[in-house]
């Protein structure tokens, strides 16, 4: 443990001493001080591709700040007001993909502030609200996300923008999907499709189909999901939209994982990572790294799985993707279980369950509950195991025989 961490631990220990009984605090601090990494002193076989992915150094976000701020300042005088506002929207979107969440929000809120004061450009105002909802969604702030979708919806309805309404329905679908309310999610996504007609709506249609693919995967409707992803990926390829194409690859990886076709899944995750790493799309990288870590766990390659979860953790922390962090804990729990470190495994599953509960992500909570339940059964603590397994069984009953553990974060668009 390096000196840096001793400093924060000093503060944390003081706090624990104030709140816990002496014995509890002492036991817990001992656990906290242990280095939980299993790869520190182990060598393991690694392919060149995995090596480059693990050694990937995400860009330092503040390097983006100066050029983007200069663009925002200088372009104000160079282009029309309407174009400037659209540029702000695009920059906000770009920063979100790059994992610069706060900066993305700063730009979008700044745009909304300008639009409030001038009272024109209703369509851009609606898009700015939708953009902010997307940013809150990425941080799992569901109430804020919902509020801004409603604001966007009101404006799109007032200007009778069918494409805009479709986008809002799509966003509502993803919001309900994240909260594991799959019936509501599907209703919104299907409603979204009904609002679309012409050729110009193809990009939005591709987004909605991708999200329907996610729901179909979760429900075990694999053929439908494959079909959704095939059409969506063709559209994104035509549109040269590599960011969203990478997300479709990730979701295909997730689909194959659920079908236990692990080699195919690895191919898709690698395709996603290759694009996302090359373009520094951090939000895609985090989930695809988790996807690979899950597969390596299933293939009993704990060291490599750990290396991928650590990298995923580094990225997810940077972009404050709490849902991914919750999933990382689950996979860390699986890895520790594989290493027969029951205590730490239990703790990691508990972390995952707690975070998913806080984030109202019922599917992920149920998945981690299954893992913890099985661990407790293995440790002959059947009574404790039962409450977790009962909770999970009750949840999965409503998903029509879906396989119990997928272990991946879906990536909605």
């Amino acid at each position, binding site marked *: 443990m390096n000196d840096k961490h001793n*400093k924060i631990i000093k503060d944390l220990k003081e706090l624990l001493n*104030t709140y816990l009984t002496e014995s509890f605090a002492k036991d817990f601090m001992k656990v906290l001080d242990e280095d939980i990494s299993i790869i520190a002193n182990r060598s393991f076989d690694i392919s060149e591709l995995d090596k480059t992915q693990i050694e990937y150094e995400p860009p330092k976000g503040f390097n983006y*700040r100066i050029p983007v701020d200069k663009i925002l300042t200088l372009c104000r005088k*160079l282009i029309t007001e309407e174009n400037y506002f659209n540029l702000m929207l695009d920059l906000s979107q770009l920063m979100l993909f790059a994992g610069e969440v706060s900066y993305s929000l700063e730009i979008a809120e700044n745009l909304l502030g300008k639009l409030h004061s001038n009272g024109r450009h209703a369509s851009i105002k609606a898009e700015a609200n939708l953009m902010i909802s997307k940013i809150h969604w990425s941080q799992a702030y569901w109430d804020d996300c919902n509020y801004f979708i409603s604001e966007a919806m009101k404006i799109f309805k007032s200007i009778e923008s069918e494409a805009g309404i479709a986008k809002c329905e799509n966003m509502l679908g993803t919001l309900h999907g994240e909260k594991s309310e799959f019936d509501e999610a599907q209703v919104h996504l299907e409603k979204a499709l009904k609002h679309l007609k012409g050729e110009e709506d193809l990009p939005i249609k591709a987004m909605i189909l991708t999200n329907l693919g996610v729901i179909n995967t979760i429900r075990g409707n694999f053929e439908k999901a494959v079909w959704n992803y095939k059409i969506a990926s063709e559209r994104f390829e035509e549109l040269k939209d590599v960011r969203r194409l990478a997300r479709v690859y990730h979701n295909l990886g997730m689909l194959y994982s659920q079908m236990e076709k692990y080699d195919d899944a690895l191919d898709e995750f690698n395709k996603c990572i290759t694009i996302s790493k090359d373009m520094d799309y951090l939000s895609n990288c985090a989930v695809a790294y988790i996807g690979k870590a899950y597969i390596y766990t299933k293939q009993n390659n704990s060291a490599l799985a750990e290396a991928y979860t650590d990298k995923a953790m*580094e990225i997810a922390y940077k972009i404050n993707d*709490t849902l991914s962090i919750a999933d990382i804990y689950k996979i860390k729990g699986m890895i520790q279980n594989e290493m027969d470190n029951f205590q730490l495994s239990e703790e990691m599953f508990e972390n995952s369950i*707690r*975070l998913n509960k806080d984030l109202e992500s019922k599917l992920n909570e149920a998945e981690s509950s299954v893992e913890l339940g099985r661990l407790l059964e293995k440790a002959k603590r059947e009574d404790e195991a039962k409450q977790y397994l009962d909770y999970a069984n009750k949840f999965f009953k409503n998903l029509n025989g879906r396989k119990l553990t997928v272990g991946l974060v879906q990536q909605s668009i």
Partner: protein
Amino acid sequence: MQLTYSKFEHELNRFLKGYLKDDSYDHLKERLDLPEKEVDKVSEKINNFYKEQLQIDNHQSKDRLRIDRIITFSEKTLQAEKFCKFLNELARICLSEGKLDIANEIFRKANKLSPSGLTKAESLLGLADVFSRRANWTRSLEAINNAKSLYKSADDSRGLAKCENLLGTVYGELGDILRAKKYLLSSLSLIDTDNDLELAANLYTNLGIVYHIQENTTDSIKYLNKAQESYNILGKHKNISEVNLNIGIIHSDAGNYDAAISAFDKAIEIAKQEDYLSVLCLVYLAKAEVLLKLNDYYYASDFADKALEISHNADDKLTVADIYKVKGIVARELNDFEASETYLLNSLRINNSNNNEMNAAQTSFELGVLYDKINDTESKKNHLSKAKEYFSSISAPAKADIIQRLLEFNSAS
């Protein structure tokens, strides 16, 4: 700082080409790429002491893991009320280390779970603090007012004093100095300063800052010394670094640069030791400003760049705006007028977007100096008049006089 984000730059260029005509695009590109290279070359020669001061470890994903483990463990161990109090304190630690996202997440959790009005009020104050650091004034004021109602109904005068203190800092950040002072004095009247050393010291620090802005150095020093005395008794090292920062600023503004640097160095030493990033960033910036006054442009630029890295990561928009001001002055003094104008306009744009009147006025003053240097009389008059109007309104006559003299100097020439 050299442009090292080639993939990102490529994407930005693609964006910009869609928005700009060819000649505008070329012009903008030129301004985006030009200024910093020279500064970087020279700053390689930075001395070892400064190098050491600028070296901090920002690799924080392991901290997240520790914090999550502590929360999960404590949730199982503590009663609801005690757990929420614990969460509030844990979030405060995260806040002081510049971990705004996780502090926000923990305060939200405490707010959601709080069984009593008082712990809920405490979490609301924490959230208000997070919002104000992000310059989200509306939500900050809303959270303070909600906390205030809860403290009022519990007849908790200390809680009310904390609300008034935070209101004072928010209005201070907004540049409404008279209102800020009113709230701070009201807060002071609500507590027993002999028995509540910590809150009293916080208020003394804030009053010290307000009196300094109002050019009342005697009272400013008096309050800062009182604050330092109390923090010494309490052993609150982090706060001592904050007081040193403010004492340094007073010395710097009085032209006592050696004393200022000595105070800043003390502040840096403590803030680095304590991982007090939120203050470290401000000290770096203050040191950059004093180095500017000593014509050490290259060192000033290095300190400003390091401050930019921390403030961008901590989503501290107001400090980012201040850093652009310093970078603008550096470029102006190096006769790179285009770069200087861009940086100062960046600063002005961000301050205006966040309604920060005082910093906007300071930047307007610097723009006035720039336009004076390049004989753009109309722009000079425009910016200096705005700055003068502000400083007159907050009872800072010396600053207003300096601006008036600069305005008259122009009229005479």
